[in-house]
């Protein structure tokens, strides 16, 4: 540092120095990105959620929660209320703040009840297909005051 050097305030922000600071910022940013990439590559696996546990965990609410589609007037397990089964209800019981969360498309079918409904979560991308389709789950379907056999088919995107 040459404190004896003559300079003015305008020299401090002279064009040459501004270019220096711009290049410095870019280099600093690149270094930070490089650092993060290297660290994440060599990082421990202790924070990794194995396979698709999270997606399986998330879809449980569709089968079990009265807040989603489960019929809750009587003490019955695995009964889907056909009246509740719609996209609005699905997006009320599956609220997310980023599109990287698993996306689901559900299809409820019951021939005897005459039900064939589909609902998608808000982050479902229609332009790409599903990443995984679960085997149909046998469910009871409550419709017009009666119980019918039916099945629930779940397709997933952004599995994690």
């Amino acid at each position, binding site marked *: 540092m040459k404190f004896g050097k003559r300079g*003015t305030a305008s020299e401090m922000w002279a064009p040459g120095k501004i270019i220096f600071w711009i290049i410095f910022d870019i280099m600093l940013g690149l270094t930070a990105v490089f650092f993060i990439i290297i660290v994440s590559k060599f990082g421990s696996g202790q924070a990794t959620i194995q396979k698709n546990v999270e997606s399986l965990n998330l879809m449980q609410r569709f089968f079990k929660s009265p807040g989603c589609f489960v019929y809750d007037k009587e003490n019955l397990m695995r009964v889907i209320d056909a009246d509740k089964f719609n996209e609005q209800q699905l997006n009320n019981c599956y609220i997310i703040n980023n599109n990287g969360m698993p996306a689901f498309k559900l299809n409820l079918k019951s021939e005897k009840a005459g039900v064939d409904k589909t609902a998608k979560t808000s982050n479902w991308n229609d332009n790409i297909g599903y990443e995984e389709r679960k085997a149909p789950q046998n469910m009871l379907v409550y419709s017009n005051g009666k119980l019918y056999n039916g099945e629930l088919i779940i397709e997933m995107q952004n599995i994690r």
Partner: protein
Amino acid sequence: MEKRGQLVFEALLVIIASGVVISAFVMAGKSYGSQDAYYRLAVAKDLALAIDLMYALPGDVVFTYPNDVSSYDIEIKDYSIRVYSHKSSLDPVVGTYSFAGTSTDKIEVAIRGEKFVRLEKIGNNIKISGVDK
């Protein structure tokens, strides 16, 4: 005199900026090197999974997360969990993970330096608090 002052000011600015950058890298390096960054991310993921699973349960349930989290502050809001150091509010390494919420419940809580996290589901709502035992 004014010109020399400007040069000193410039040097100070460079020193402070360098100090901030170097200390951020040192803190991040220490955090990753000691596996602490992964632990706090694991805590965020564990809590997110626990919340996701509790929303799926039809009845009421109480669960105490058994890992010691007294070294961290935990913030839960906007369907996201943030875990960072209890000592430094300017922690550059934050463990963050999202969960799926419901329209009937909104979790907003901050747990600072308490040993365990207690999650309690009553009806369709989850209440989260810090407990020491």
